[in-house]
């Protein structure tokens, strides 16, 4: 990897931050580049990318905007694999001409670059081009969510949210001004990437007719695509006189067209995190008929309210199903449990009662998903329950999501689910959103 723009005088220069983290923490050979040459940290500084003797797979360009064309030309001459242009000072600050110039150069040479004006690439365990010191970043583990963001800030913040939720990344890319490589290119890339199961985007806006190409491509791939859109309130209701122009505002069209193509729209960062977690486990759409299992009537009622708000159904279970559950329950709760849905096993339930309820709900076609509200302060619940219920879920694969309060002493329960491929939310809302994600996956 080449880092162009490394300063011999300013240790806090973005290029230096990137050089340092690659040099010290990644299994990558990195070459500092500065036209003045010299020696930096006992390493030779190359005057140009094209002077580097070894192969350059990626060049990170963090030089002043007016020097970017020359540096890019060096990369092309060198035959580098591609570049990330960190530098700002292009279309975002009135220099569309400079941006067009580097884009034309790259097109001409068939040379790919990300940016300009971006953080670039975060590839867990391999490398990253973020000019943010490693100790300041919250770094998600390798995982199966690919995330593409027009905003670097949103990307870094979402990495914090993903980490809190225990969600791993396959690749994260901040595309900045997206002069050459745009959302649709990364959509294609991540669709073909075997490590990526869910593809998420933070989008501010598409270019003319670009949204059409994007949704058609997203609908054609088999992986779930989640989109968080900013600028919902900047209505495009221009005064042209027709009702359609005013009713079909820019955001309304965006939202409806996404739903038409089975692309999951997240309305905020909390939904984005829940949706990515859920869809990385369950990538197929459901109608949204939820079976709820709880030990607390209050939690069951709250979950019902949240489901109803989202448009999920909590259907009353047939007598055949409730009887099947009842006959398998422990004798002391058999007559007090309320089983119509929510299935309230009461605070006296033990592990076997959960297994009985989940087995019946997993088999009946009356529900297509199960939301489990697991409150570990209930004395009959053992630390094995997470793993045991995950095995029940695995018998027939009906989507199961759990709510377990996220505190350290319940970690063994949470891991019992998560390590067995069942997502766990830290709130009732979060668990309901995980079910909602699957419903939104189905084209409306």
């Amino acid at each position: 990897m080449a880092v162009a723009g490394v300063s011999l005088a300013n240790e806090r220069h973005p290029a230096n931050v990137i050089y340092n983290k690659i040099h010290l923490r990644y299994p990558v050979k990195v070459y500092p580049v500065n036209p003045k040459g010299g020696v930096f940290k006992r390493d030779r500084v190359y005057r140009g990318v094209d002077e580097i003797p070894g192969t350059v797979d990626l060049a990170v360009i963090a030089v002043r905007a007016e020097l970017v064309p020359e540096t890019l030309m060096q990369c092309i001459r060198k035959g580098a694999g591609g570049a990330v242009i960190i530098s700002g000072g292009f279309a975002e600050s009135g220099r569309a001409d400079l941006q067009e110039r580097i884009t034309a150069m790259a097109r001409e040479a068939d040379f790919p670059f990300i940016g300009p004006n971006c953080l670039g690439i975060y590839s867990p365990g391999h490398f990253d081009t973020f000019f943010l010191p490693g100790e300041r970043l919250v770094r998600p583990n390798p995982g199966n969510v690919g995330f593409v963001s027009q905003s670097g800030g949103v990307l870094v913040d979402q990495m914090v949210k993903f980490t809190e939720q225990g969600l791993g990344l396959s690749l994260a890319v901040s595309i900045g001004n997206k002069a050459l490589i745009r959302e649709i290119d990364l959509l294609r890339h991540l669709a073909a990437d075997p490590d990526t199961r869910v593809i998420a985007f933070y989008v501010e806006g598409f270019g003319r007719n670009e949204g059409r190409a994007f949704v058609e491509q997203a609908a054609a791939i088999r992986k779930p695509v989640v989109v968080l859109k900013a600028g919902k309130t900047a209505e495009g209701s221009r005064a042209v006189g027709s009702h359609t122009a005013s009713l079909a505002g820019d955001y309304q069209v965006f939202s409806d067209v996404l739903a038409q193509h089975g692309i999951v729209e997240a309305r905020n960062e909390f939904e984005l995190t829940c949706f990515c977690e859920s869809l990385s486990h369950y990538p197929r759409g459901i109608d949204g008929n939820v079976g709820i299992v709880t030990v607390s009537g209050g939690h069951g009622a709250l979950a019902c309210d949240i489901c109803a708000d989202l448009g999920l159904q909590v259907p009353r279970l047939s007598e055949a199903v409730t009887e099947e559950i009842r006959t398998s329950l422990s004798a002391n709760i058999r007559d007090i449990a309320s089983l119509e849905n929510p299935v309230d096993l009461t605070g006296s339930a033990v592990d076997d009662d959960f297994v009985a309820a989940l087995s019946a709900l997993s088999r009946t076609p009356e529900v297509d998903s199960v939301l489990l509200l697991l409150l570990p302060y209930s004395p009959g619940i053992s630390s094995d329950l997470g793993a045991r219920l995950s095995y029940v879920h695995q018998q027939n694969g009906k989507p199961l999501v759990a709510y377990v309060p996220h505190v350290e002493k319940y970690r063994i329960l949470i891991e019992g689910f998560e390590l067995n491929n069942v997502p766990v939310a830290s709130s009732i809302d979060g668990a309901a959103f995980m079910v909602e994600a699957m419903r939104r996956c189905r084209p409306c």
Partner: protein
Amino acid sequence: MLSAEAEKIMAAARPHGWVLEPEALRLLETAGVPVPRFAWARSKAIALEAAAGIGYPVVAKVVSPQIMHKSDVEGVQPGIADGESLAQVYERFSRLPGFEGTVVAEMLSGHELIVGAKVDFQFGPVILLGVGGTAVEIYKDTTTRMAPLQASDVPSMLGCLKGSRLFTGHRGAAAVNLAQLTDMALRFSDLVMALGDRIDSIDLNPVFCSQERCVVADARIVLAR
């Protein structure tokens, strides 16, 4: 591809920036979208003759390049029962700005829907379906799909509306004819694709949908600037 007739209508509308109602109805007709029996009468005598042919009651609507929203200037008179009333209405309309005659059309009945289209910057042509009538902007109960529509989009769009049960036979009221609505919407979608970015937006509002048929009662086509 637009028909030669449709091309002529579009060319004639360019100076106004939008297509006058009788021309818009004719444009829809060229695409096989059902419209009412109507005439564009530029004299009282022709209006009376047309109404006699259509059969009373009729609706009269002012035609003027200066009046896009006819209801706002009381430029729509439904339920005209006889020639005498029609003559009075014609007289009243003739005093409105830019008067270029009157549309005389058969009275329609059924549920009122809005079917619309616009060329979206990010997604290109899109089709809108919703609860129609003069209160569309009050209810704002509409849904949008990227054009061209598939046949399966139409029932799905209807199902997305908050008021969808109004159209499926709520409390004994007749349901809309879904096959007719689908056919109408698909023909409209084809027309919208053929018009491409020559339009800014189109309102078909109201579209009267009954158990028997779906007919566009009024159309407003705004051209791209």
